[in-house]
């Protein structure tokens, strides 16, 4: 039998290409290269992959800038990062004074302890890594690319990471609800035995505080918040309708009954006092008050929906924001302004309402509402 085309250049090339395809297909089908995580990489592969990763992080994080509210030294921001680190990162990476879960030792690459990387990478690089994760490793991307507020909290925490010991870490991640020995008793049980609500509120308390007042700005205040609003919002986190790397994994484990119980629990706690008004910021607060009460031709008045009491009964799906922590007010006003978010059925209304706010106006509004007494009976008509 004579094969056609063997005597021409083009014919030969065709035969070689065909053979290559067949060999490749065979290789994929038989799969002779062992991909077992148990076996180490071939010599040099680890180095190549790791170097490429470091360079990619450097290149792709160019141009990333921290938002103006980002303050690396803000203890509340660091605590928020620590609180989530305990839920989302520590199981694989370990934590200060605590080795990673033994299961992760079998991963290739194994998730490294973070004291070195946290010291080696610049803030923008840490931000990129937390936001995007890595292909071909176990490192996941953040559930939402739009939650800059959460990403930068993690970065603030990671910046402090190399200097932390086990005690510091427990204080940051748990605050007063920390169990005596975090490493021995990873499961936290306070109050009743096997009382899941107690466990749940402890999980919440890590950031929101046992009194629901947000651990001095670590997380939004929940005490005295509208029950219906909290239920809908937890639902939205659980279903992924409202993106959040911090709240989604927590809310997703909750049953409907637990969501209802938690909402009732926090709604029943007394709303704490508002932040004291700094006399130096009188002008800013007054500006915020005017906009919040009256709005203008571009921006609806906040109090028409968020105002409390008075003769007007508000829809309970509108959250109470008087006395809320200033950073969260600011961050959320900008989140709402910049894109639509899921949440209660009224989420789109908030996006439309915030759309034309300037940065300066978000600052004024955050200053005003953070100093507004949650018990105030403001009448928007005044």
């Amino acid at each position, binding site marked *: 039998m004579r094969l056609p085309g063997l005597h021409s250049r083009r014919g030969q090339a065709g035969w070689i290409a065909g053979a290559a395809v067949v060999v490749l297909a065979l290789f994929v089908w038989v799969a002779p290269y062992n991909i077992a995580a148990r076996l180490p990489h071939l010599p040099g592969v680890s180095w190549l992959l790791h170097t490429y990763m470091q360079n990619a992080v450097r290149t792709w994080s160019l141009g990333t800038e921290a938002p103006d509210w980002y303050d690396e030294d803000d203890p509340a921001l660091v605590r928020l990062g620590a609180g989530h680190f305990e839920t989302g990162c520590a199981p694989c990476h370990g934590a200060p004074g605590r080795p990673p879960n033994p299961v992760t030792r079998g991963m290739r690459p194994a998730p490294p302890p973070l004291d070195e990387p946290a010291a080696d990478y610049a803030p923008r690089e840490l931000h990129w890594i937390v936001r995007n994760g890595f292909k071909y490793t176990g490192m996941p991307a953040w559930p939402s690319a739009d939650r800059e507020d959460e990403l930068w909290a993690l970065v603030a925490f990671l910046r402090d990471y190399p200097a932390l010991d086990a005690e510091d870490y427990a204080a940051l991640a748990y605050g007063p609800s920390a169990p005596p020995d975090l490493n021995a008793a990873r499961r936290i049980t306070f109050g009743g035995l096997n009382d899941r609500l107690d466990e749940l509120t402890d999980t919440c308390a890590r950031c929101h505080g046992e009194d629901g007042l947000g651990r001095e700005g670590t997380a939004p205040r929940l005490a005295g918040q509208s029950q219906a609003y909290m239920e809908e919002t937890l639902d939205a986190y659980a279903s992924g309708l409202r993106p959040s790397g911090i709240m989604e994994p927590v809310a997703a484990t909750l049953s409907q009954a637990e969501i209802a119980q938690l909402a009732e629990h926090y709604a029943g706690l007394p709303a704490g006092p508002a932040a004291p008004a700094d006399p130096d910021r009188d002008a800013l607060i007054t500006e915020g008050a005017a906009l919040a009460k*009256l*709005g*203008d*031709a*571009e*921006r*609806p*008045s*906040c109090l*028409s*929906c968020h105002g409390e009491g008075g*003769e*007007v*009964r*508000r*829809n309970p799906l*509108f959250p109470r924001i008087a006395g809320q922590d200033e950073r969260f007010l600011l961050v959320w006003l900008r989140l709402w302004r910049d894109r639509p978010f899921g949440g209660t*059925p*009224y989420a*789109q*209304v908030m*996006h*439309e*309402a915030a759309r034309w706010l300037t940065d300066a106006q978000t600052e004024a509004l955050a200053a005003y509402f953070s100093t507004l007494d949650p018990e105030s009976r403001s*009448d*928007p*008509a005044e």
Partner: protein
Amino acid sequence: MQSGEGTSLRIVHHPRGRRLIVLMPLWLAGCDGPQSWLAPAGRGADTVAGLFWVVVPAAAVIWTVVIGLAVYAGAITPRPHSEKGASRLILWGGIVAPTATIFALMVVSLFLLRDVTGNSADLTLNARGEQWWWRLAYEDPQGRLVPVPNELRLPVGHEAEILLTANRVIHSFWAPTLGGKIDMIPGRENRMTLTPTTPGVYRGQCAEFCGEAHAQMAFPVVVMQPDAFDDWLAGQAQPARAPATEAARRGAELFLSEGCGACHTVRGTPASGEVGPDLTHVGSRLTIGAGVLETSREALIDWIAAPEVVKPGARMPGYAMLSEAELGYLADYLMGLE
């Protein structure tokens, strides 16, 4: 999708001539109706229509002569012209005749323009173009501003001065049956006068592309007898009526508890928002959504539930999360605001 593609293909293959014939009645219908400057009901539009009926026959004559000459030149056996004759033809036919015609037209139109621009207005109103509605406000005899968004009412035979401005982008205010159009420009106040001559209900339209809902930015124009107009304006200056029925009362409550007052004003209630149209007398207006839907209980329900369906890009968020009953109460309340 499948059938949609089929349809569009058929249109592409439609012979061009036949399509024009099909469209012809539409084109002719444009000469009449509530939004045609060829059916004038105001002094400005009348003047423009008069000018049009002079210019069109004149242009037809000139066109016929020019085309006739061209046809004639093609038909005759070519023969050299004398240089003198050719120069004379170019001078008279190409320079003198057009210059004289255009100059005459300019003189006539300058005089017409002077007549159209009045300076003895009996009535002043402010008009600000928004995306995508009209923030109109009348100065009443006491000098107060009476907001009447999205509806232009004028007394017949009286000159009205309209001060035009805009928010964010350029719009153009045009009530074709009454007069010409004038741009509304952010940061600048333009002035126009309208003198309606025939009572009736007409339609105005934004005439400068201003975004997604430009085509849905319209307004009814009502030319009224002066007495009726005065009564109407006095009525519009009043605060809102209290809800008369139980349903309307619940609607009024919802209006406040749902935060509608953040954007809308209902004078006489705590609702004092300025973002959207004043709703104090929305039930008395002919349309809602700036000329988009005829005012009715059903239209209000549809609008509140999903404004973007009838008006893409509308800033008002939809309230489809409200129950049917709640939407009904709100509509009852608003219909009662006459």
